[in-house]
């Protein structure tokens, strides 16, 4: 059976034993993202003011995401594209590719659903964007689940160790 795959988008889901509100704050605030994602994220309002740690990012805000151990240069800069303040948060990621997070209940657990779309589909880009990005998100969604459920933060904290999926 020939399987054709749409490499222009991918969807990942993770079930988390937490409230929709907690899961939303993990994406939409600087403090929330810092607890599980990359190194740190800074949100700035359209006037350039840095939002407070627990302030919810709004549509039109800029974001700068920094890698662990590299606090000086952001690795990704982009914008908050869409949010409803409770269960939807969309932002531009590397190469301005939109990432949309939707949070909802399913069988008494909270599902965090991530869709990365508008990916280029030429041969070189598939390996780079589709494979690399989805691989990266799988680790970080796992870490989101772990930290929100009160478990370990799985990120590598030893700067001397490189070339590991935990950064």
């Amino acid at each position, binding site marked *: 059976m020939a399987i054709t795959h749409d490499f222009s988008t991918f969807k990942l889901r993770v079930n988390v034993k937490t409230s929709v509100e907690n899961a939303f704050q993990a994406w939409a605030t600087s403090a929330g993202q810092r607890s599980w994602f*990359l190194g740190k994220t800074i949100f700035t309002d359209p006037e350039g003011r840095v939002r407070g740690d627990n302030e919810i990012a709004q549509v039109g805000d800029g974001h700068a995401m920094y*890698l662990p151990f590299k606090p000086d*240069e*952001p*690795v*990704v*800069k982009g914008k908050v594209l869409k949010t409803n303040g409770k269960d939807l948060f969309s932002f531009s990621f*590397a*190469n301005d590719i939109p990432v949309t997070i939707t949070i909802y209940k399913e069988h008494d657990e909270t599902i965090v659903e991530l869709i990365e779309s508008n990916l280029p589909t*030429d041969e*070189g*880009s598939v390996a*780079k*964007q589709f494979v*690399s*990005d989805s*691989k*990266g998100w799988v*680790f*970080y969604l796992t870490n989101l689940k772990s930290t929100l459920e009160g478990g370990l933060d799985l990120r590598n904290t030893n700067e001397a160790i*490189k*070339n*590991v*999926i*935990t*950064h």
Partner: protein
Amino acid sequence: MLVRPLPKTFNPDNEITPPVYVDHFLFSETLKMPYQCPEHPSGIGLLVSEKGSCNYYVNGIKNQIDQNNVFFVNRGSQLAIKTTAFGVTPTMLFFNSQLPDLVQHSLIYSDEVLLENFDNLPYDFSYLERVHVDAGLRDRIISLIELGSSCSSFADIQADAAVRAIFEDLLKANREAYKFSQNIQAVKASTRLEIFRRVSLARNWMEENFNTPITLEDIAAVASMNSQHFLRMFKQVYCITPHQYLIDLKLRKAKHLLESTKLTINDICLAVGFESIFSFSILYKKRFGRPPSQLRKGEPS
């Protein structure tokens, strides 16, 4: 960024126009047999050597690149590679064809101004085309080889950010060079850039040979100019004579040695190429405001 072994040709489509890179390409391979790539139009790139020294020919001129320097090749320049030594690792980073103009644009107009001002593209980067004596830059390019094959989460995004930062830092570090390149009073831009390229080549040569007895004729020969023409051009570009530049270079190297080593003042004086400790001390005091003996208390100056 894509990491690839050395290709047989850089532009499989044709050998007339520069290749269009839709991503950053890092070509690197440790040679087990001689590698030669015939002359072809190049994309914008940085040519280094991970191991040994490599011979890159740009517009017919041989550039021997080792562990301490990097060659910037401009788009459209004729590039040929002839490296025959066993175990050498030629490494070439070619930027996504759109990146240099985007970075230059963002440095001029800031990130907030979008593409409406892109009428003037492409920018001219020929003032960068020369050897850059910068071991740190070379190391950053070499570190991309590991990052390119890393299993780290979002390693590709890290690599892209690192490549962009390399180009951005190169432009920032050469703002002065860009300004200097505009100082040359030649009518045609191409003539101005060629003179600047030759003068800066000679300046790099001075940086590498400052501690040997060199003459104006020696330096002018590196720039392929007669000595009086070179003297005028060097002064136009850097606003000082080559002699003044060389003295300042020796004094800066001496200051570095005084601060970072336990060598005696006499040894340092000889190491940077001064013959008389007396004139060295006078010039040092004039340049830095205090004699070298103040950093070496107890030593006679």
